[in-house]
């Protein structure tokens, strides 16, 4: 990390809305990067191995698979919203109040997405 061999005197900024938004974006990205190979692998494997469609269908009924896939969908939605936020901040001129509003709106959209996917499960 910093290589300065000193303790982190500063931590207050990690309570700020913007910082949290940035870190949620990063963490959702990391998780997506971890899940994506598995997602691809599952799609490829399931069809190859079972050859018959029935097997694949049964497989997707497994609760663990369902939850994992729903989680992936949720992460995707969150990462998408966070990404739109970054693109907008980097490429448009904003007044601070607007930025806060936009971040809050995007956060709300994320929560709505979560609720939606919990219901869809």
């Amino acid at each position, binding site marked *: *990390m910093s290589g300065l061999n000193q303790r982190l005197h500063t931590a207050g900024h990690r309570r700020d809305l913007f910082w949290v938004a940035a870190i949620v974006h990063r963490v959702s990205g990391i998780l*997506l*990067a971890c899940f*994506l*190979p598995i997602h*691809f692998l599952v799609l490829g494997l399931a069809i190859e191995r079972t050859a018959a469609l029935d097997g*694949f*269908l049964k497989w997707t009924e497994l609760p663990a698979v369902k939850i994992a896939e729903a989680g992936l*969908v949720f992460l995707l939605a969150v990462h*998408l919203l966070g990404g739109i936020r970054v693109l907008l901040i980097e490429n448009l001129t904003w007044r601070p109040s607007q930025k806060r509003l936009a971040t809050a709106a995007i956060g709300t959209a994320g929560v709505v997405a979560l609720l939606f996917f919990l219901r869809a499960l």
Partner: protein
Amino acid sequence: MTLRLYLLQRLTAALMVPLIVGHLATIIYATHHGVSAAEILGRTRGSLGWALFYGLFVLLAAMHASIGVRSVAADWTSLRGRPLTILMWGFGVLLLLLGARAIYAVVAS
């Protein structure tokens, strides 16, 4: 991150926005209407449109994710220079191969 990686990262991100929306819409439609996997596969099999849509999606995602992984590793691990580049390319190629195989399974098999 350098200029070129930054540009690719933002470019792939922007291009993926409509693709992700389409992907999510498909999923939401399928779960809401109780479309079974069998029906989905029935529609995807042999469809050039699906193959192109997801082919592009996989390509962009592989580029975007591998640059992202490189950035995170640069910040949060002690990797620097060459190992970072290897990590980026390795992860990108892995995603590309697995993605291509998944598309093949869904569209062609």
